[in-house]
């Protein structure tokens, strides 16, 4: 099943500005919408997914993409 998803490139954006931008981007989406985020390895992949989960969003997938990561997030109902 494929569902349309928004994308957000946060490669090169340091913490916590990357988490802030991800949260701002997801705020503008309807509940249940998917957001695919490109993140750097290291602190960004360690910090951004938990920050999204803390705000009620679900991290659906985390996959390696070259030197970085692709993270698929579903917007939470209450977020």
């Amino acid at each position, binding site marked *: 099943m494929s569902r349309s998803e928004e994308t957000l490139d946060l490669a*090169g*954006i*340091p*913490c*916590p*500005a990357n*988490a*802030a*931008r991800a*949260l*701002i981007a997801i705020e503008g989406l309807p509940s249940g919408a998917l957001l695919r985020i490109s993140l750097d390895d290291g602190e960004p992949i360690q*910090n951004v997914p938990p*920050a999204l989960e*803390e705000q009620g969003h679900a991290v659906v997938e985390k996959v390696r993409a070259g030197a970085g990561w692709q993270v698929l997030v579903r917007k939470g109902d209450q977020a």
Partner: protein
Amino acid sequence: MEIYLDNAATTKPAPAVLRAMSECARRCYGNPASLHRLGVEAAKAVERSRRALAEALGAEPDEIVFTSGGTESNNLAIKGAARAAGKRGAHVVISAVEHPSVAAAAQSLEERGVRVSKVGVDCTGIVDPAAVARAIRPATILVSVMHANHEIGAVEPVSEIGRLCRRHGILFHCDACQSFTKEPLDVAKAHADMLSVNAHKLHGPRGIGALYVRRGTALSALLDGGGQEGGRRSGTLNTPAIAGFAAAIEASDPRDALAMRRLRDRLWNALRRAVPGIRLNGPRSARLCNNLNVILPGTESKPLLQKLSAAGIYASAGSACSSAKTEPSAVLLAIGLSPQEAARSMRLSLSRWTTQAEVDAAARAISRILGGS
């Protein structure tokens, strides 16, 4: 009565700005570099503002560096670009009417071996792009020309100058502190590599500004520290002021420029009728919408400004940075005025809140004081 006609010096903060700052100071007090939830909340406020500023300039959020104001933005652009170039015998071009934060930064570079050329202006304060072209040498690394002049309101042909610089592979910096949100400006159209703005000229807070830095521009930091702002400007970000900056941008309306221009012209026409011999400094048409600068006939401006202040009408002799000095304004000398004429000059600058009744009252007061002196 309080009639504030010194808006080129600074402006009264807008209610929406004060609300945004207060809300941010109460709710987003975490350090926007901290990784915990309060830090992320503060970072969200910063990033929202960064996006608003980037959109207003036609830039990308990553190209915005927050600073403490226009002076720091100008210093960072000029000194940072020269440091990054790192070449001995480098050459920088500025105009003769730049704000002191550009002129003094260039002078500081000169004391460190960088050669600096100052391009003159015509009698209305306009820089000729051909003169900039003539000033460019093989060693030129940077040209800095302002968008709108802080004293006489001259709006410079920055797009043409920027295009020229881009063609020569030279960095172009533009100080847009006076014109931001008042004159249309897009960093791409201006071919700007760097562009300075601040908040307090548009009813935002003091102590916050930004430098647009085009992606790929080599720029060395001036402050050593925690490496905030992508390493270009260390120091804990002033989150409430940054939120206030965005609120000021959001509260601005391009239609205000038309209203300010109409009232500014009304003020000038009233003064021309009431004060025989009064003259205009600066251009008639290529002029910032809220700026009026005049030479008074046969009297220095400072006694008049004191009397106006006593009557609740506030204006300045020149820029806020130089009005307390005794030397004549470099801008007014650059347009060919004598020191005596410069001392007889006065700047009246409007805001979007200036009313017709206020400009009429100011014109009457000036006429009455001059008539009685």
